[in-house]
């Protein structure tokens, strides 16, 4: 029986983050210091709605992108 790793690493816009295995997207957002309603999220290019972040368990090697409002043309 293979041993379950204690931590996972997810890729971010620049760099990466090490998290306890089983961490959710909601936990990552909080750890990065964002108010939940201030950003939108995607995992491996897939939009994850705010209401579903707490159910979105992150996997080792996934890419998480966070987006925030800005001015634009």
């Amino acid at each position, binding site marked *: 029986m293979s041993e379950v790793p204690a931590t996972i690493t997810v890729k971010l*816009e620049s760099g990466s983050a090490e998290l306890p295995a089983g961490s959710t997207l909601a936990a990552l957002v909080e750890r990065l210091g964002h108010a939940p309603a201030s950003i*939108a999220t*995607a995992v491996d290019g897939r939009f994850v709605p705010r209401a579903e972040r707490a159910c979105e368990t992150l996997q080792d090697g996934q890419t998480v992108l966070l*987006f925030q*409002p*800005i*001015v*634009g043309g």
Partner: protein
Amino acid sequence: MLQKSSLPPGHDDPWQVGPVTLASRFLLGTAGYPSPAVLGEAIVASGAEIVTVGLKRSLAAAGDNGFVATLREVLERTGARLLPNTAGCRNAQEAITLAHMARELYGTPWLKLEVVGDEHTLQPDPFELLRAAERLVKDGFTVFPYCTDDLVLCRRLLDAGCPLLMPWGAPIGSGQGLLNPHALRTLRERLPDTVLIVDAGIGAPSHAAQAMELGYDAVLLNSAVAQAREPVAMARAFRLAIEAGRGGWRAGVMARQDFAVASTPVLGHPFVLPEQP
């Protein structure tokens, strides 16, 4: 007898985006202003009822020097609506994902759909644009597609359910004005009942007036105001130019002539002078 309207400019000549009635025909971008205060004043001076915004990737909680906060405050005061864009997207899937993020963050189904196909010109990719539009309309978005002036593409975007079209005047941020008035005129003539907005490439108020004189319903621009020496004054100048161009279209611009046509109704020569010896 001449009758003077007591309504503010535009209110006697509204236009529609779906069920939404608008008076201002000036859509203003919010990027590149020297300060949040100038941005706020420019929005007010423009009279815009629609302003564009974007999304950017973010690693850690970071500020934006107060631009978005100012924007929200001004919008609350003026009642202007947000039009989020998908700037930076290179294919349909990216645009679809970003569109859903924008809807969540900004709370509006309105979307300026941008899918760029060429890095040098920032020309829209017609194939990816159409693919994204078809999906997003089904997902409940009100899609404002930033497109080229190709008539067939425009028809396909309408078939996909876009309520209006936003063909480019010239490459984004170039300020070159309307590079292909013939194509824009053709769109107007072939799609007489479609809301058409010239988006991108406008550099001077005269360009905006020209678009309106062609019968376009509105104009969307950003850099020409944001990069002006005095953005607030330029926003006001564009507002007036758009109103003037629209007025010219409604009044009916005279047909062009190849040769001079005397305007004063004289009979022959004003004086009959004896010939000089």
